[in-house]
C-alpha cells in the first residue's frame, strides 16, 4: 500500500513539475500583455497570484473541515490534516500577499492599500499563522489541539468575507472574474489562468499530502515515546 502511495505521489510530483514548466513558458511567451491600467507586463503576475489565492482557499477549507471533524471526534489523522491545511494556507497566502503588492505597485502606484479585500485576506492569513505558531510552540496536548482546531474553523469563516468584500465594500482590488467582472478578453489569458488553477491545485495536493503525512508521523512517534516512558523502557 505504501509503495502504491509513493508511486502516486511521485507521479503527481512529475505531473505538477511538467505543468508548471508549461505554465511559466506559456505565460511568458504566449500570453499577451494587458492594458497599462492593469499593470501592463506586471499583469502576468495575475496567472500565479489568483491561483495562489484559490489554493489558499482550498487549504483553508481542508483545515476547516479537518478541524471541525477533530472537534467532533479527535484523532491523530484529523489533527495532522488540519495542521497541514493551516501550514499550506500560510504558504499560499504568503505567495499571494507578496505577489499582489508587486503587481499593485505597477497598477495602482502603491504596494499596499487598506482595501477591504487586502485587509480581510491579511487577517485570514494571520489567523492561519496563529494556528501554525500555536501548534509549533504550545505543545501537542489535547487542549492545544482543540484550540488550534477552533482557530482553524474561525480562519475559514473569513474566506467568504474576502471573496465578497469587493462586491460589498468596493475598494481598489479588481473584479475581473465572476460576478461584476468583465472577464479575460483573450483566449490565451483564459488558458493561462485555467492552467494556473490546475497547477496550483496539484501543488496544494502535494504539499497537503506530504505535510499531513509528516505531522501524522510526528504524532505516532510522540505516542510511542509516551508508551515507552509509561512502561519504563524510556527514561526521557
Amino acid at each position, binding site marked *: 500500500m505504501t509503495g502504491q502511495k509513493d508511486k502516486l505521489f511521485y507521479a503527481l510530483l512529475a505531473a505538477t513539475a511538467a505543468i508548471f514548466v508549461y505554465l*511559466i513558458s506559456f505565460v511568458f511567451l504566449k500570453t499577451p500583455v494587458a492594458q497599462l491600467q492593469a*499593470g*501592463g*507586463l*506586471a499583469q*502576468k*503576475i495575475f496567472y*500565479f*497570484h489568483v491561483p*495562489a489565492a484559490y489554493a489558499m482557499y482550498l487549504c483553508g477549507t481542508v483545515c476547516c473541515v479537518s478541524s471541525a471533524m477533530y472537534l467532533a471526534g479527535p484523532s*491523530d489523522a484529523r489533527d495532522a490534516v488540519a495542521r497541514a491545511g493551516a*501550514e499550506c494556507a500560510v*504558504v499560499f497566502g*504568503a*505567495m499571494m500577499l*507578496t*505577489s499582489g503588492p*508587486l*503587481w499593485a*505597485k*505597477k497598477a495602482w*502606484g502603491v504596494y499596499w492599500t487598506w482595501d477591504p479585500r487586502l485587509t480581510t485576506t491579511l487577517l485570514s492569513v494571520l489567523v492561519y499563522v496563529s494556528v501554525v505558531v500555536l501548534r509549533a510552540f504550545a505543545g501537542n496536548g489535547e487542549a492545544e489541539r482543540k484550540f488550534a482546531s477552533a482557530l482553524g474553523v474561525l480562519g475559514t469563516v473569513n474566506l467568504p468575507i474576502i471573496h465578497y468584500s469587493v462586491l460589498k465594500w468596493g475598494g481598489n482590488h479588481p473584479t475581473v472574474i465572476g460576478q461584476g467582472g468583465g472577464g479575460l478578453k483573450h483566449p490565451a489569458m483564459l488558458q493561462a489562468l485555467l492552467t494556473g488553477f490546475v497547477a496550483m491545485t496539484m*501543488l496544494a495536493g502535494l*504539499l497537503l499530502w*506530504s*505535510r499531513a503525512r*509528516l505531522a501524522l*508521523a*510526528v504524532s*505516532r*512517534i510522540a*505516542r*510511542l*515515546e509516551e*508508551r*515507552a516512558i*509509561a*512502561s*519504563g*523502557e*524510556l*527514561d*526521557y
Partner: protein
Amino acid sequence: MTQAQPDTGTATDPSARSTEFVAVQGGGDTTSAATLLVTAYIVMWALLLGFVLMSWRRQGRVETRISELEKALSGSGGPKGGAAD
C-alpha cells in the same frame, strides 16, 4: 542618431540643484513592470522552496527522534505495548 540632451545639469553642477519640489502626476512610477514581474516570480518560488526546505528539516528531526527511540528501546529489550495507532 542623436540623443535628447537633459534640460538639467549634472549632479556636480551647483546651478542644477533643486530649489523647490513640485508635485507631478505619475512621477512616482519609476519601477519597471519587468522588474516587478521577475521579483514576484522569484519571491513566490523562494517561499515555496523555503517551505520544502522546512519540511525536509522537520523530517530530519523526526528521523533523529526515531533513531533515539530505537536506541533506547533496543537497550531495554523492545517495546511491550505494541505499535501506536
